């Protein structure tokens, strides 16, 4: 202690103001992101739509037309594309804005300063990412059908496909949030390529998992949560194609979602409060 520093007796403090209910504040923070999401709907469309739609077009219309790929490949491929859209849209739509908001603009500070536990601000981000992922999945379904001229349609499988896509989007959001809050800004781009590319190509988007003949590749794909999203959606829409059983997909995805939620909220909170 310094000589001039007088010890300060703690006196009876003022009565604190009651803080508003967490639910109310959480809703207000969500509302902001929903408003921004609504305004950026066309951005989501472009962001998620282009690659899968081109993939569909090339694999089905072009290669199919040349007889290189079987005509029914599109049916097998479309569920994978829906799953891909859900997971990667959620991942990108949380990661890129967060890098910006936590980086040079610090725009997120106003929400971090809301009278709400920081973990709930993080959960809010995951909710929005999931909404965006699901939106992307919902949009890609009819758009994909338009591109290839047909689509597997099985109303009984839709609830299962929806739940799997939701879990996939949540997982994508959690991966994106963990990356965005832990990696230095200058490494974000390269990490995205390093992470996203294997997620896409080992995620059983283009092929059913049980038919894989390389055992080591079956192991690699089984380690990718994307596989269970693709398999889950495919199994729901095309039950006749061999697929991983629904209960396995749901259990694995739920477990991964719980673990990644914990991890991503922790990463977010550590970034927000040091």
């Amino acid at each position: 202690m310094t000589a001039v520093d007088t010890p300060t007796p703690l006196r009876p403090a003022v009565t604190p103001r009651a803080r508003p209910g967490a639910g109310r504040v959480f809703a207000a923070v969500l509302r902001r992101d929903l408003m921004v999401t609504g305004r950026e709907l066309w951005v989501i469309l472009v962001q998620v739509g282009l690659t899968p739609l081109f993939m569909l077009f090339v694999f089905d219309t072009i290669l199919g037309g040349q007889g290189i790929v079987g005509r029914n490949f599109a049916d097998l491929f479309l569920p994978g594309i829906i799953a891909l859209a859900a997971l990667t849209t959620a991942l990108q739509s949380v990661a890129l804005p967060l890098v910006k908001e936590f980086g040079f603009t610090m725009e997120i500070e106003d929400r971090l300063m809301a009278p709400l536990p920081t973990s709930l601000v993080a959960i809010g981000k995951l909710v929005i990412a999931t909404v965006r992922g699901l939106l992307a999945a919902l949009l890609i379904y009819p758009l994909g059908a338009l591109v290839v001229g047909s689509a597997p349609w099985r109303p009984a499988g839709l609830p299962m496909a929806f739940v799997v896509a939701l879990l996939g989007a949540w997982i994508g959001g959690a991966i994106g949030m963990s990356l965005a809050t832990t990696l230095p800004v200058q490494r974000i781009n390269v990490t995205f390529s390093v992470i996203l590319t294997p997620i896409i190509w080992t995620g059983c988007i283009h092929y059913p998992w049980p038919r894989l003949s390389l055992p080591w590749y079956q192991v690699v794909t089984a380690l990718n949560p994307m596989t269970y999203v693709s398999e889950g959606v495919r199994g729901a829409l095309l039950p006749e194609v061999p697929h991983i059983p629904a209960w396995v997909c749901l259990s694995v995805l739920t477990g991964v979602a719980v673990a990644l939620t914990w991890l991503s909220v922790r990463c977010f909170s550590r970034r927000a409060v040091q």
Partner: protein
Amino acid sequence: MPSRDGPAVVEVADLVKRYPRSDTNAVDGLSFTVAPGEIFGLFGPNGAGKSTTVGILTTRLRATGGRALVGGVDVGRDPAAARAQLAVVPQHNNLDRALTPRQNLVYHATYHGLSRREAESRAGELLERFGLTERADRRIEAYSGGMAQRLMIARALTHDPMVLFLDEPTNALDPQTRLLIWGQIRQLRERGVAIVLTTHAMNEAARTVDRVGIVDQGRLLTLDTPDNLVRGLAGDALLDLTLTPSPADDPEALCAALGELDGVRKAERLASPAVPAGLRPGAGLPGGAGGGAALAALAARAGGGARPGGGGLAALAGAGLLGRGGAAGRNGGGPAGRGRLRVRLHLATDPAALLGAAVTVLTARSAALNAIDIGEPSLEDVFIELTGREPR
């Protein structure tokens, strides 16, 4: 002790913060309180621990030790509740660029529990108060630095905080905006809002802040009203003398001799000026009077009622004390600063009364007086006195 009545709204006791992988404490046992309606200035050099302290108080950093309460809430134990009591205006623009200026205020209010309707009326009121109504619905990117700062302060007030933290509130702003902001700060004080502000524009802030804590190396060096700090540490007045000691004389001894005069609290050597002091009127004296005019008045008084600007100086010149070129402080002449000495005397008396005695000392030691500058000490002088001249 807070200068105002009522229980403290900010209480900091033995606060410590050590960052991971650091050998020293960024904040090292800080204690202070702030009362409602008090403007508290937290000053210190860069890296002194101010921002860390404010970071802890605003729940963005976790303290390593000690206790901090804001609005009666322990910021470490219940950060979410603490955030309902406070607002922060950071130094950088952290406005939400996805929203319009008006939406920035409306959404902020809803984050703090106001209903949509309340939030909108509050936002309208504040936009008006900060002169932003006409540009409330444009893009944030079109805002100038001053407008962004006004909007950030307005945003901080939408939820009516008990304590407002302002980091460099007037940094790089035009005089009009600075006036507006200081005016708003004073109004908030009237309403009982406690304000904790950090700034390097201390002399500007000194007119408004009620108490000042000066922090360095994580510790509180002093804590008092600006007036008491200035009087207590820097003295009533400053007298800067630029001298040419006789070749045989030791500058340190000369400085010490001046320091022993009655009414001198302290004498210190300043760095020799690269440019003769007289060419920069008032140089080195923040808030001080212009060198030439002050000298004339001073010399007139010291000369014992001689004609203003006349006899006194003439007498000094006649005594052979003034350097080449005659009028002291006007023209140093010759190679700038060679062999010269600048001495700052911190005075407890009127500078005029002391000048005669100083001249006597100089005459006795055959030193030439090249320039004289008088000024009032400022908070910045106190700051330099306490934290040193070396940049961090």
